[in-house]
């Protein structure tokens, strides 16, 4: 089983929503479409589902051209950011609705709905109506509807975006389990890098209607092919600085901090990307680099502390474990883990990891 987009392109009027895209998704995989709002995630999903037709290009499913085939014939299910359920059906009837239409026997329906409801912790509320449920439960119902019918393709369009923090965390942890041992392709759109990392599988980074990079989630994260891909896959945003390489020494253009590099590239100017969690208030790793900073903002998020600081004329973001408060204007030393630096050339393509 596989889903393949061949030279797919989508234009609306003069606007290009999806630039020429080739993508092959394999069976039994979770594929994450990672990108900011308006990156084209939803459009791409609708094209995959058959809810929308590409302007040009083809969609192949199991070596069959399904371009333009109606969504009803495609055995697809989809979960949306909004909690979409039939408003005056009970939870049971909502979950059973895809089965009823395809004419599954009532005994089997009962059994399958029961099983999915248990998986999603909805067993106690099968007789309630959606508007009597919390947002989290409404979205669980929508997920159950998508899972009950054994689709070949399950599309989830930012399913957790409208939930509040607690419920989002809770459901997020259950998600990988839901898709285990399913004979299907899962496509999951999200704006949050942490969701992609949690779900694993493969990730495609998207920006402005283009797929920048597609590969195993960890590979995409560790070896971004370009600055854009690295930025899409980094939250808080990656620190970018211009550097100069001379021999085996590198230095920032804007200050005189130097470090040794194993990079086997010719001398010249490059850009370095440093993820915030690789700049910490404590030394981490074998090759650390000290940098002086003046605190701009300091904020605490969960058990981590974010410190925005300036060095030279650049603003930096650092993310350290532990909770501590810094005052605005404080001078402090921070440590950068040079092993984790990502180098890009002048065209913002990946050079190599240091």
């Amino acid at each position, binding site marked *: 089983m596989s889903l393949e987009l061949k030279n797919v392109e989508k234009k609306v009027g003069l606007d290009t929503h999806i630039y020429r895209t080739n993508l092959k998704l394999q069976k039994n995989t979770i594929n994450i479409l990672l990108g900011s709002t308006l990156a084209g995630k939803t459009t791409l999903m609708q094209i995959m589902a058959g809810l929308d037709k590409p302007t040009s290009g083809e969609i192949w499913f199991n070596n069959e051209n399904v371009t333009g085939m109606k969504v009803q014939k495609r055995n697809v299910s*989809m979960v949306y950011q909004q909690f979409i359920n039939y408003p005056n059906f009970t939870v049971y009837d909502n979950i059973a609705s895809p089965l009823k*239409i395809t004419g599954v026997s009532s005994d089997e329906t009962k059994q399958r709905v029961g099983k999915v409801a248990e998986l999603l912790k909805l067993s106690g509320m099968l007789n309630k109506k959606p508007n009597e449920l919390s947002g989290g439960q409404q979205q669980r119902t929508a997920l159950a509807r998508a899972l009950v019918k054994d689709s070949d393709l399950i599309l989830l369009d930012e399913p957790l975006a409208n939930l509040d923090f607690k419920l989002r965390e809770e459901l997020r942890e259950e998600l990988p389990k839901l898709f285990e041992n399913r004979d299907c392709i899962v496509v999951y759109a999200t704006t949050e890098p942490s969701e992609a990392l949690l779900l694993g599988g493969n990730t495609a980074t998207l920006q402005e209607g283009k797929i920048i990079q597609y590969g195993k989630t960890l590979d995409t994260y560790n070896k971004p092919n370009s600055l854009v891909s690295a930025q899409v896959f980094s939250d808080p945003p990656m620190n970018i600085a211009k550097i100069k390489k001379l021999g085996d020494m590198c230095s920032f253009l804007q200050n005189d901090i130097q470090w040794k590099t194993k990079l086997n590239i010719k001398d010249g100017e490059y850009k370095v990307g440093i993820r915030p969690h690789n700049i910490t208030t404590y030394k981490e790793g074998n090759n650390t680099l000290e940098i002086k900073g003046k605190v701009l903002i300091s904020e605490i998020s969960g058990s981590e502390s974010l410190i925005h600081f300036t060095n030279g004329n650049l603003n930096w973001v650092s993310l350290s474990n532990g909770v501590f408060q810094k005052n605005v204007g404080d001078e402090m030393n921070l440590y950068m883990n040079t092993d984790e630096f990502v180098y890009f050339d002048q065209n913002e393509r990946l050079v190599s990891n240091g």
Partner: protein
Amino acid sequence: MNKTVNQKAWFFVIPVFVLVAFNAIIPLMTVVNYAFQETFGNNVFMWEGTRWFKQIMLSERFHASLGRQFLFTFIILFIQIPLGIAIALTMPKEGVGVPVCLVLMSMPLLIPWNVVGAMWNIFALPDIGFLGHSLNALGFDYNFTQQIGDAWFTTILMDVWHWTSLVVLLSYAGLRSIQPAYYQAAEIDGASRWAIFTKIELPKMKKVLTIAILLRFMDSFMIYTEPFVLTGGGPGNATAFLSIDLVKMALGQFDLGPAAAMSLIYFFIVLLVCWVFYTLMMRNEEKS
């Protein structure tokens, strides 16, 4: 900081009190006054207790006009609500068609009641009116000034023409507020057009439809100007709805006591029906 005490703000509120008193409370109390007393002019009143209420409740004339009123309201709701929804469903969802349709739909709503009555009166006249003449030319024996059925037909047609737009506009607003994802989800499920209508659109329109039905019920139950201008309540008393009958009694016969009692009963019927209807429609909503 000390709070300053300043009662001058009341001066801003007083005009509202005065206005409401003059346009609502005082007239209403006058009616209440008349409903319990007999008067022979010169501001001389005699206490009558509930006599006028008993008289009205037992009067066949009141029963007949109340019956006509319910029948009329029921018929126009039965036509306007489904028709309004149907038109709203066929209206364009985007493009230049939207403002064009909305403006066209709003037109009847902007015409004053008495003009509507006069328009339809002339339109339906059997000898010179376009509708009346055409119907007769087609072989129908149509004369709304003389035949009861024709009078009802014309009154209902006029009201449908005048007020269906309101239901259309409310339904259209309700439909437009349904997120496209609902339609996509239904499409993925392979739901039929009818299923989409009954399982998604209708439940999602429930609130605006409740308002549409309430507004149309109240308006049609209190209808006066249009039938007054069109048929004058005739032929005979055939289209004398409650308010027409009320005005006849109050200003035609000058039976102020019974007319005042009838006004209050009329008012309570409208209030009661609206309350019952609203409670029924919203019963499920409040549970959640």
